[in-house]
């Protein structure tokens, strides 16, 4: 199960934080800080997995952005790595060539996309097209 999803830039500014487990705000800030510290200086050749408290963080860097998933210790790391990539492809498709600024100004849309992709800490949809289409329908309702 995914415990939380973080999207941070190299400076550690959080661009998206979604928690599927209840945490205090102060605890959330601590977690965000610690995860950033863990991943920011790792060699690109290293594994994309770091142990974090009793869980592990699967992260992947795209330009200046770090996408990090915190999952259970028994979860399939490689599958979640693929999952991050799929999410990035969806964002890229939706914003056509996504960049950090898109995510800043349209943060609420990013949350919406994520809600169509992952729910209750589990994968909801694996088709990029289905999610993009769904987003189109939702946009029309605005």
């Amino acid at each position, binding site marked *: 199960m995914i415990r939380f999803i973080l999207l941070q830039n190299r400076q550690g500014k959080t661009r998206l934080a979604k928690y599927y487990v209840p945490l205090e705000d102060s605890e959330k800030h601590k977690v965000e800080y610690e995860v950033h510290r863990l991943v920011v200086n790792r060699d690109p050749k290293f594994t994309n997995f770091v142990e974090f408290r009793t869980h592990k963080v699967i992260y992947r860097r795209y330009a200046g952005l770090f996408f990090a998933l915190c999952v259970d210790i028994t979860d*399939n790391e490689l599958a979640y790595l693929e999952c991050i990539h799929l999410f990035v492809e969806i964002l890229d498709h939706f914003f056509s060539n996504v960049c950090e600024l898109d995510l*800043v100004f349209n943060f609420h849309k990013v949350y919406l996309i994520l809600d169509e992709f992952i729910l209750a800490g589990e994968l909801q949809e*694996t088709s990029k097209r289905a999610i993009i289409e769904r987003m189109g329908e939702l946009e029309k309702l605005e």
Partner: protein
Amino acid sequence: MNTFFSGTRLRDMIRAIRACKTAAEERAVVRKECAAIRTSINENDQDYRHRNLAKLMFIHMLGYPTHFGQMECLKLIASAGFPEKRIGYLGLMLLLDERQEVLMLVTNSLKQDLNHSNQYIVGLALCALGNICSAEMARDLAPEVERLLQFRDPNIRKKAALCSIRIIRKVPDLAENFINPAAALLKEKHHGVLITGIQLCTDLCKVSPEALEFLRKKHTEGLVRTLKDVVNSPYAPEYDIAGIADPFLHVRLLKLLRALGQGDADASDAMNDILAQVATKTESNKNAGNAILYECVETIMSIEDNGGLRVLAINILGRFLSNRDNNIRYVALNMLMKAITVDVQAVQRHRATILECVKDSDASIRKRALELVYLLVNETNVKPLTKELIDYLEVSDEEFKGDLTAKICSIVEKFSPEKIWYIDQMLKVLAEAGNFVKDEVWHALIVVISNASDLHGYTVRALYKAFQTSSEQESLVRVAVWCIGEYGDMLMNNVGMLAIEDPVTVTESDIVDVVEIALKHHALDLTTKAMALIALLKLSSRFPSCSERIKDIIVHHKGSLVLELQQRSLEFNSIIEKHQNIRSTLVERMPILDEATFTTRRAGSLPAAVSTSGGASLNLPNGAVKPSTAPLVDLLDLSDDVPAAPGSSGGDFLQDLLGVDLSTAPTQSGTNQVQKAGTDVLLDLLSIGVPPVQSSTSTTDILSPIQNEKSPIATLDALSSSSSPSAQATSSARAAPMMDLLDGFGPSPSKPENNGSVYPPFVAFESSSLRITFNFSKQPGNPQTTLVQATFTNLTPNDFTDFIFQAAVPKFLQLHLDPASSNILPASGNGSITQNMRVTNNQHGKRAASLVYWDQPCRPQASTLMLSVYIKGMDLCVLYIGGHSSLRFLLPSQQITLHRLL
């Protein structure tokens, strides 16, 4: 309509925040925005509600408090339009979580929205419920969600399936309602619904045995067929990743099959073919393929045994392990940890590669590999593996050394074939990474050394050599200093030389050098320095030629700013200067430390969770025969007298033994102090000359063997170490009367008669203002009663008027205080006051009354004789005299200690 259109738009706020150059500027902008939003909330402004909330979400993401917006979420959720609801639910998920009471208010809105005619609104409600549902909400809304599992639109069905997962995680009792609708989802063709249905079934299997049984019986075949279809499906652009159709679905299916196959031969049998197909046909050049292989291997390892499949799986792991991609190697190591329970030999074959992974530059891989190596060690390969690990210790990263040393120490303790090897390896680790070694590890080493009497010489020489190169490694220095203190003479004379050793030429002064370096080294801590002082005291008696030099070093530390070092120096200096006659017995070798007691202590103090690294048992076949006399164990078992002492752990125990319990003492709670006080009994004045009764069980009796010891060694050793040396006492019968002890301190030493009436007087207390001398006597034929004559002398230039002396004793003693000879104490020692006390011990022969030093903040022992002095007109008020470190009072030079007390 764009939601964020008019006024200070969301976009403008984000721009303004981004334009801030400093954190202070940002705070100012945010404060202004928050103020505006608050005003707007107070005015109940409907038009901008959703925009305000969107802003608040952004502000929340930056880390500012936004609780005042919580109610706005609820209002938006309650409004009719989709855009408002959307923002409301988003805010609900971001700003609130399941623990907030506000959430109770939203249950009703959720219920309405779950039944809404607009399926997009139903979707919003399901999404919010899936992400923040609490147990109460789960109970209230489960029927709605259950119904939605059959909704016509697949988008709703998949959301409902994931919502159900959350519900049964929160309330497992609800699981049975979901079994049938969940199983129905397994027949879906829509990937999204199918994958969520599979996940729901996997979770159902976890919480409900009935669900597991039902799915196993009815759906194993169907799932195998589904997996077959997915594996063999033609190219589907919608789900294609690296040439594989929906690897996520593969992974979820394999996971559910694992749950069904585990512990059931039939189900396992049904999936063998497809697992073999997945394991052999899946492309392994891309991450997606490897993710499937990885999941497949785990399923093969978990389901009921099928030899052929397991070989296949182990081969895949072997391939993974030699992959250049670190991620793949990482998961291989991860999986080999599981494979080890299935087939140790197969994993052992990869030992060399795994050992290489321990040396990887990536911490994640190193950590996994180290765990795996730890599991691979056995009696036959422990030596080469340990050598590799210790060699690597020299070059490893600083941050990895902690883990690595812990594992090496644990391996060495667990599998050591012989003591000498154990000691060798531990010394290597200490020399290389002594600063990372946990206290209990070097404590255990000292216990082992103490028990290996044939290796004392060898060990102390090896430590001496190691010290020359690694004097920065704290725990090496501690062990070295301890051993030099104990076995320093063996170091010099090459005693107990082993064939493998080169002889060393070491002079007495070289040895003292080592201890002096340890004492003066700036980087070493108080415990080490305190141990060094004890070692010096011991050496001073063993090396007469260096005695002067040692005395100088000790004198030098009398001015130490650290109180503990100062105290010890003062005490030791007095012993060296004034008590030559008892010094050699005082500093005799420690008795052999009891391994069994230490081991149980240690095992008891270690939490179960760290058992892998703790390695509790010292499994040394050629261990010295441990002393088996029961009283000895009793004595070592310090906490027996205070059963609930919270601080008594293995570590404390050995620290007590070594007399190094410095850092903890001042901060420990009262209970622990009591425990110490209980063991600190020193002067059994009132039971002197009485045959001891060892059979009774009261607190003091545990300590009573002190009375019948040959020499005061044990008690005086308590100067530095608290009590364990008294273990020696049991071994010997009483040879000299206890008052020997006081000889050293009394101004006029004289041999007491055995059951005689006169004991030498001694100065109980002396400061710049007052001296108190006690004379003890016993009447022949009345051993219960001790007569104490106190003599007070005023050392100040002023007379003391209204001088009152008071004394208090525990209940089992009776005190009779005669009137003082006067209440005016003349100045400058021109005359004195005497006062007689008669102390009767009602339980004479059963309980020993002791004069025990009462240190703050501990409470006096029940058997403590407290003597207090109260002198009117002066600040000097209470004085407790007695044992342990308090001997220091009896030494007139130690006024600093006294000032602390007075």
